[in-house]
């Protein structure tokens, strides 16, 4: 049973077509593996070097924030979102914890501070 996976428009450059895709699997991890088999350019953008969901990427299964072990039902919808970070040391809280928002502290991109 395939489920719908929606990706942000900004990631459309990494796929063969569109922002709406179909994939199969009983967990989010399995769905992503199936999706990456047809859209391999997505993997690097959603997962980090350790195979974890990137720190600033949020994935929802049926409107609830998901991790790779989250079960996926036959009629589930999966939405990939670009996170907006805040807080202090950790850009995003661990799954299930309380966000430590204490003020605006957007992601610092040091690489562009060279001129």
């Amino acid at each position: 049973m395939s489920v719908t996976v929606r990706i942000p428009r900004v990631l459309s450059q990494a796929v063969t077509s569109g922002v709406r895709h179909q994939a199969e699997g009983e967990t989010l991890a399995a769905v992503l593996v199936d999706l990456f088999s047809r859209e391999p350019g997505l993997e690097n953008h959603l997962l980090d070097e350790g195979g974890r969901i990137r720190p600033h990427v949020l994935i929802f299964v049926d409107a609830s924030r998901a991790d790779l072990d989250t079960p996926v039902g036959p009629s589930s919808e999966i939405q990939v979102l670009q996170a907006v970070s805040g807080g202090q040391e950790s850009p995003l809280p661990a799954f299930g914890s309380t966000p430590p928002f204490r003020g605006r502290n957007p992601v610092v991109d040091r690489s562009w501070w060279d001129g």
Partner: protein
Amino acid sequence: MMRILVGTEKGAYLLTESGPEWHVEGPMFPGWKVTAFGQTTGGAHVAATGSNWFGIGVHHSENLLDWKPSDSPPTWPEGSDRKMEQIWTFHNEGDRLLAGVAQAGLFSSDDGGMSWDPVTSLNEHRTRDQWTPGAGGLCAHRILSGNGSMWVGISAVGVFRSDDDGVTWVPKNDGIPSVDTAEGGERPEVGYCVHGLAHDPAEPSHMWRQDHQGVFRSTDGGDNWERIEDGLPAGFGFVMWRHPDTRRLLTIPLESSENRVPVDGKLSAYASDDDGSSWRIAGSGWSDAPQFTGVLRRAFDGDGNGAFCFGTSGGKLWLTRDLGDTWQELNASFPRIAAVSIVA
């Protein structure tokens, strides 16, 4: 007909000369930083993209407008605690395409950039635990090669040279002041902040270096460096370029590390026709209006025909077609410019 690729903080643009005007196409890669351009030995164009959220990408194109992503861009091996933050530069070495990245590393591709392998001899250099980032991060931003040697410039670390096709690498920074060592203190092996690096293709061991600490040259492949700032208004900056035929040098001084804009707001390139022994303002055409803007370390390119173009952090492009004798500011504005490439 000249074409110029411009990589910015928000996408890439292709400028095509059309009579006295420039036809601008783009943005390509909307929403993405475009950080480097290259070309494979097969002739395909390569572009690097980056995102604070979605990592980096490598894309290929035959016509500069339609781009196809690589399925396997450079990535650190699983288990590494390093982040793949940005691709800073591409370089052709024989049949290989090399990429310099942040966090600092060198990657090699044998298939035109479709897949990449880390160059562990440099990436895991015995000094690696002493590599620490500067204001520009920890990036391998310049690769040169010639006469059997290769050089890699790494911000806040220094220049490394390999004379055995990348099997071993030796730091080459003698004569360069360290970024953070007090005068008279013991010289560290690494910790030298190279910003720009150029050499003479006909004599690859003749090198010029825009460093955090000033402007230097070497006539022995980097074994020794000497300061050459006569005529420059400041020693700081990011740009260093050598024309292959006339041997003219161009650089673009900025006031200081703390104030990375032209001295007194007078933006201009400086040229040297005596291997850097003396410098003068390059030609005419510069704006009389204040130009408090910077030029990033990969935001320039030159060709063998006398064209040289640079982009500013304020999003403007400056072009000379006669090696710096006359300059024009192109009539367009872009987001912060990170990469410029003149394409045939």
